[in-house]
């Protein structure tokens, strides 16, 4: 799992690249926790280059999402496609987080 991080005015855009499974999901939690410790609370998670997600990945999303919510922040998901989208649909996670087709659209929503 790799990350590309881009700080925008309204939010920090975190592109997650590769696989979010039971082995790598803790890396994601750690990465987001580190940024929250530094004061960031608004995130756009870009899943355009995410190849795979299992329940461990969803669990990591939920854990960080709950913390963001407690901080009064925002967590928007963008660019979810293919089989990853099916996993969101089957798990019901598609309704938990606001989902946007593009990072641009998510940024627009974050600015409001």
């Amino acid at each position, binding site marked *: 799992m790799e990350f590309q991080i881009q700080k925008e005015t309204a939010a920090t855009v975190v592109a997650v690249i590769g696989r979010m499974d039971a*082995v790598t999901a803790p890396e994601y939690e750690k990465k987001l926790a580190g940024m929250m410790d530094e004061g960031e609370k608004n995130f756009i998670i870009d899943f355009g280059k995410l190849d*795979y997600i299992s*329940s*461990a990945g969803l669990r990591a999303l939920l854990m960080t*999402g709950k913390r963001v919510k407690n901080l009064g922040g925002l967590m928007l998901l963008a660019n979810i496609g293919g*089989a990853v989208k099916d996993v969101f*649909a*089957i*798990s019901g996670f598609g309704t*938990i987080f606001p989902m946007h087709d593009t990072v641009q659209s998510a940024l627009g929503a974050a600015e409001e």
Partner: protein
Amino acid sequence: MMPEERIRVDAKLDRLEEIIGFVEDCADRFRLEDSRKFGLNIAVEEAVVNICSYAYPDTEGMLDVACRVTDESLVIELSDSGIPFNILTLPDPETDAAIEDREIGGLGGYFIRQFSDAVSYTRRDGMNVLTLLFRRGASIELP
């Protein structure tokens, strides 16, 4: 019927990649569609994660992974000698709950059922045996 292939590994998460590689090779021989390999990967991962956590909660143990390929189906059998544990008895999560109410976890057994064409559990000779079956041409149902 083609011969069965099996591997034995430590029931630890750091062996997950090796296990997934093994079952994907079997899926290739079976000519499972690429679109379904994703679900195979998820079902096997969820099974392995739960075996590591619940069959061997305080101890270390082995996990046997066997693949049988027939004309009609790909059968993956995961067996461990841990404490009796049947992931299929866990209730489905509430997939329509809001973030505040959403429980952490509980999706593993649900994913195994959703992404395989058939699944069964049995306790045999002091082992937990979880059997996952995949057919070609079948597709998962989206809600």
